[in-house]
């Protein structure tokens, strides 16, 4: 079963494309429509730790959402409208993670330490690489060639890549200037 959008879905497809572009723009360039949530601490180290904890929590949300998405896509009766909903939700969650990480990265860069700068650059590049999976799904959907099996496989790669990223975030604590 392919998730080829029906004619009456055309408007929704266009909306999805616009929403995707908007999310990418907001997360990559405009600083997002949501503010990163973390408690500023009494010291810079405490603020960093809080920002990192908020990023870690959001990474877990993203991982759980990806796993749930994969499970849903593998079930019978998964249709184009379900994909649209999951895709939009996935992008939003990923966008929030990006915001949380940008806040953490901003604090870490204020330290002026090369190790912190490098950790931020690597984690940032990791998120950029993972985001390619959204582009892939979006293109396949737009071409009308997206299959639920492909979604399941992509969700697995997405959630596992995110787990890898989350582990690296945990390991990077001392480089970013705080102790978990």
């Amino acid at each position, binding site marked *: 079963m392919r998730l080829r959008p029906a004619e009456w879905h055309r408007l929704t497809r266009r909306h999805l494309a616009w929403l995707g572009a908007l999310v990418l723009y907001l997360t990559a360039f405009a600083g997002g429509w949501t503010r990163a949530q973390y408690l500023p601490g009494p010291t810079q180290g405490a603020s960093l730790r809080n920002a990192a904890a908020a990023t870690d929590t959001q990474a877990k949300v993203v991982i759980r959402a990806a796993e749930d998405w994969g499970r849903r896509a593998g079930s019978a009766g998964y249709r184009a409208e379900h994909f649209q909903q999951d895709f939009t939700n996935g992008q939003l969650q990923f966008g929030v993670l990006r915001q949380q990480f940008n806040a953490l990265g901003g604090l870490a860069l204020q330290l002026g330490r090369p*190790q912190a*700068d*490098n950790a931020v650059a690597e984690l940032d*590049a990791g998120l950029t690489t993972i985001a390619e999976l959204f582009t892939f799904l979006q293109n396949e959907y737009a071409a009308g060639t997206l299959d639920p099996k*492909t979604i399941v496989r992509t969700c697995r*790669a997405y959630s596992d890549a995110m787990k890898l990223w989350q582990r690296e975030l945990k*390991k990077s604590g*001392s480089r970013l200037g705080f102790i978990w």
Partner: protein
Amino acid sequence: MRHAKPYLKRSMIGDRSRNEEARADRRLLYLLLASGLLGLGWFGPGCASSRSTPPAPKPGRGIAEYRDVTREAHDAVAATINALDLLMRPKAKAMLEHPDLPDFDRAFYQLELTSVRARARAEAIIARGQKYFDEWKENLVGIKDPNAAQLEAARYTRLLIHFDRVRLRSSEVRNEFRPFMGKLRQFRARVDQPAKVTGDTSSWPELDALRTGGRRVLESLDSVSLALNDAETELRATRAAQ
């Protein structure tokens, strides 16, 4: 690197003689080079590191780490090409039923994960590396002894050439890798539709194009390894000349 300037403040050198100052400058610039350019910024402990605390930078250690990342990426791409080779043996009517498809899926999945780490490291190099050299260049201006300044400028230039070469070749890897991954994803998505990719020889052109793309990635990774070897040789020569 931001900690470089305090190191190079002349007030820290105090009332040493001119020669001592020059030697101190050389040592500090060498430390800059070893710990900053090749140790922290370029090849420092990163995503692959399992340490909980940052170790003291050692000259050349970063090159070895970066070489490990290159090797890991190379192995993952090579395994994917091997799996594509197996898919070229016509064994099933539809590619989806090909007995070697699970091996391909494993290799491809591993490549997805390896690419996140390896590409993050490579892009971090591009993002950060030039800044280190820019700051090193600024610090060169502060060396008062003309002989020492000339020597350090020569070292700077030699190592910048190596850095630029690694950076350029890393970006070539990225340029080759991204379309390779994109086409692999598209291919695997098409395999999910049995009518589109058959298990006989008609799928050979597509598989062959994928293998060619993979080999180009391998070649670009090999070229990074060669550039790393050259950089290491230069670093050793610099160390020997100290």
